[in-house]
């Protein structure tokens, strides 16, 4: 097989599975370490705007933040949330997903991973605390505006208007968190266990968060996302 063909095969696996592992694709994984093939892949990385995070037993494809060719878009997220999803729902879903990442990887020491698992009710409680804190300050509106956007206050109200738990209803806080968790599960980032009561991070999420996502050097990139957004 030519080097280009091998590199394309590796790229195909990366696109299909999001990863190339020693356990599942041993031959290609060995080829992946070949400097000539790696050079071709560097070209792919540049043209298709992605990075490969390489560990001893696995490699992950990481689309650059603004890569709308390989990556997701807000539209995809909206489609996933359902035909009646509003922008508020997209925001809330993103906020909850990020909040989950924060609970898992909020450690300030050498090992950022803080939790083995998180219970869904705990996420609901922590979000409740956060949103209630915002809403309870609503008398001091000016100060609140300084700290939060008007839209976020609406988000907090939207959260607060949901019921706590009702097995048959979708409009509950618990269901909203589960929905965000399912979205992450679909992306192989977490797994939901124990009859929708508990979540755990996957090794993929651990690898990417610990070896790439949380790097201080990415802060510039993240700030640009918020600044450039139109």
């Amino acid at each position, binding site marked *: 097989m030519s080097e280009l063909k091998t590199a394309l095969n590796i790229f195909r696996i990366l696109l299909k599975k999001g990863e190339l592992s020693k356990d599942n694709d041993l031959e290609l994984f060995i080829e992946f370490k070949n400097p000539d093939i790696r050079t071709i892949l560097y070209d792919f990385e540049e043209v298709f705007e992605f990075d490969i995070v390489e560990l001893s037993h696995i490699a992950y494809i990481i689309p650059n933040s603004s890569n709308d060719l390989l990556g*997701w878009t807000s539209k995809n997220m909206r489609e996933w949330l359902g035909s009646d999803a509003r922008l508020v729902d997209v925001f809330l879903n993103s906020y909850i997903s990020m909040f989950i990442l924060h609970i898992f990887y909020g450690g300030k020491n050498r090992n950022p991973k803080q939790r*083995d698992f998180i219970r869904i009710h705990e996420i609901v409680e922590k979000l409740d605390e956060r949103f209630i804190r915002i809403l309870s300050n609503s008398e001091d509106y000016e100060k609140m505006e300084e700290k939060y956007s008007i839209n976020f206050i609406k988000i907090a109200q939207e959260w607060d208007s949901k019921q706590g738990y009702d097995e048959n209803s979708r409009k509950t806080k618990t269901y909203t968190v589960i929905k965000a968790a399912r979205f992450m599960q679909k992306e192989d980032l977490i797994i939901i266990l124990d009859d929708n009561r508990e979540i755990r991070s996957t090794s993929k999420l651990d690898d990417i968060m610990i070896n790439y996502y949380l790097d201080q050097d990415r802060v510039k990139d993240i700030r640009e996302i918020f600044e450039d957004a139109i």
Partner: protein
Amino acid sequence: MIAKYPEYLEGFYKRMQVSGAVDSIVNRRERKMDIENRFNSGDLENILFSLLVFIMEKTLSEDNECSINNIADFLGLILPFYGEIDIDNLILAEYLVKDILQNGGKPRFFDIMDYSAGKIKYRVKLIDDKVIYTEKSYKVIYRLTDQGYDFLFRTKEVDDEISFTIEELKLKELIKRKNYKKAVLQSRSLVQMVRQKKSEILRFLEKLRENIYSVDVAEYEIIIKGTYALLEDEYKVMDDIHKTVKLSEFNLFKDENSDSDNVEIRKAKNDIAEILKNIDRTVSEQRELIINRHNLSKIYIDTIGDSFSKTINRRFDIEDEILCVMEKLSEDKYCCLWKLFNPIFKPDIKNILNLIKLYERQYKLREKEFANFSDIVENLTENDESIIFLEKERTNAYIDIVKNIMIYGKEFNKFRFSDFFSFLNEKYENIDVFTSEERIFRTMLKLYDIGLLDIIAWKKERENIIADISGEFDANVCLYAIEDENPDIYNVISIKISKDDNVNFECEYTISENNLNINKKIILSDFLIEVQI
């Protein structure tokens, strides 16, 4: 500068590690008083320690997995000793394991004074868990951590480092004294101990792969230098014991020949056979461990290499850099949020290589070339939203039809389409959404065309299926949507649509179009629907 301390306080921190373990059980956080109040003082502490011993036994003695259900069964076994306690075993198991022993998933620390280095925060973790991927779902199994083993050994068994040798000495002595009955037990405990070493190494490997930052260099040194040195020594000793036992067996053989009716001799012979079996098992597991030593070193060195090359010197805080910024974000910037997740989501290959997108482009070409498509084009350009709405309404109707077949099928496995139609009529005030564009009838014809909708096969192949969201009925779209709401897909195995006779279904209904009421009459086969659960 650290002050001088008395020599007898050297290694004092080791004593306190035991205190930390005891503290995690006695001064447990995450208490649920509705459960705690059902027990007498001290009972839960006894139960928790028993549970730890059970987890050790389950994972070592039987070399088996220990799930929450196994733990619940064990609790069912021991609870009667504590009186009549009205509690569900599974609820108690979850409370003791997840809330107490795992501290609700949060790390638990105990302040320990190490007089040579100062105060340290000692993480107490007596049990660990592992998610096993089974064909249908995930399963969590529990085992003791090294700390847990260490703690349990200190509470009953002798110090770990010398225990192996002591166990072997005991075995040798017992064989010498021809106490084969006890020697059998002794040989079993040797198997248990080598398995503990094995699981210690396996746990270390898993930790290494999961998160190198959770592994200490000292831990590696102990495993590589300490454990393996011990194993190599023991391997030789076990060989000697094997010879001794063989000799005993030979002597017994001679005795048996001279006195073939002696029950004692026959019993001793059986015991010897079991001792030999256990010794062989121990030796073979030791050998396997020693061979794997180089693998372990390689994985460790590779992973360390990774961690150096990928070392992140400083990490940002999600709270400061993302959550707080999101809280101040104006609505017009919400559309950027996907970019935050782009690096962690899988590439959306279906988005790039979706054939539907190709069709969309062809459609636009026609827009320019053919004048008679102008009506459609006008609709598209002026009223995109309503077209999108109509497509979504159509798709949702298909999903609801399939979902309702499953719901109805759970009650009546085999039924006619006419029954199902009546069911929908009763369930929904207005079934226009189903009859509009003859959606329900077309769906039935499509399903009849498919014949058997095999949901188990679909689950296996789902990764390779690209759903067609063009607005036409597509069983894949329906199953994806139903799975999202109900991950088990109502436990339906398959749906089969057939017609076994010439019975027809007829219905008349009225629809409104452009302020006109139009009567429609539909005649189609009264299909037979079979839902296998």
